[in-house]
């Protein structure tokens, strides 16, 4: 009963996210609309974390395998990939590593500055 209720809430918010995604002309995915809506509901006190936490934990704990089918979809574009595969791979991997380090270092530097004051 509790899990059913939690699932209903989460799926309800998801559906509203999907509706917003179709109604508004912005390139924002349904899940991101839903994320902010859920955050708003929690902040306003209309929902308590206990109302969604159990089912929410299941979704969050099992997020990684949800990316498998889309990733396997690359298989359909092997021809296109053969032509540009190596530069794409290098550009993506190198820039990801640099962005990761710059973001982390910049954030940490800002926090350090605050701590010193």
């Amino acid at each position, binding site marked *: 009963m509790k899990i059913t209720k939690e699932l209903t809430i*989460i*799926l309800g*918010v*998801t559906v509203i*996210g999907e509706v917003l995604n179709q109604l508004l002309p912005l*390139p*924002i*995915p*349904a*899940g*991101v609309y*839903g*994320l902010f*809506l*859920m*955050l708003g509901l*929690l902040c306003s006190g209309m929902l308590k*974390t206990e109302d*969604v*936490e159990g*089912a929410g934990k299941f979704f*969050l*704990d*099992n*997020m*990684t*395998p*949800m*990316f*498998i*089918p*889309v*990733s*396997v*979809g*690359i*298989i359909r*574009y092997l021809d*296109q990939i053969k032509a540009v595969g190596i*530069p*794409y791979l290098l*550009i*993506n991997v*190198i*820039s*990801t*590593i*640099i*962005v*990761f*380090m*710059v*973001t*982390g*270092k*910049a*954030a*940490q530097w*800002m*926090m350090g500055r605050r701590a010193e004051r």
Partner: protein
Amino acid sequence: MKEILTNSVYFGFFLTIGAYLTGLWVKQKLKLAIFNPLLIAVLLVMACLMVTGVDYEVYEKGGNFVSGLLTPATVCLAIPLYKQLRMLKKHLAAVVVGIASGVITSAVCVFLLCKVFQLSHEHYVTILPKSITTAIGMGVSQEAGGIVTLTVLSILVTGITGNMCAQLLCRLARITHPVARGLAIGTSAHALGTAKALEMGEIEGAMSSLSIAVAGLMTVVVVPLVSGWI
């Protein structure tokens, strides 16, 4: 064989979960970052499809049981974010500066690397939205005149890289604060990285979730500004 599997609705579902379980098992046995469960699972499923000759579209029917959970899972990212709201307010300046510098670095990096590899304007705008979540990235690429399927590929390679290397990079760059770790993961490697951040800790997960949304929106603004560079 192919006919029988084609008519099985749960084949794709089973294969996805089974391959992931195998990936987890291999990771546990070998304990090396290169044996990432996601990467192993993806390669295993691809190999299975190639060997059996089953079309991707057939696999996708069952796979959708798993990938369809992604939208509600994204909604659930609000839960750790809400719990860490005080942390977010406390470090607001670091959050904004961190994500903004990441978004700008991403654009500059892609620009320089595309120059190095002498890629055309079309490929440049295809790769630009690589660090953001697929649904936003596809829209940005299309708007800028990129090749959407290759954008999806870039986003996946980026995400898998982030998911695989997050812990190693934190150690190498001495990114020790959980807030900074979460921001780095979410800004560089969107939801796929966030899956890893959630495993590392609640603060990491919350900050990474936030970064997906904020970096995504910032990138929507930044890409049109830099798309004319090549």
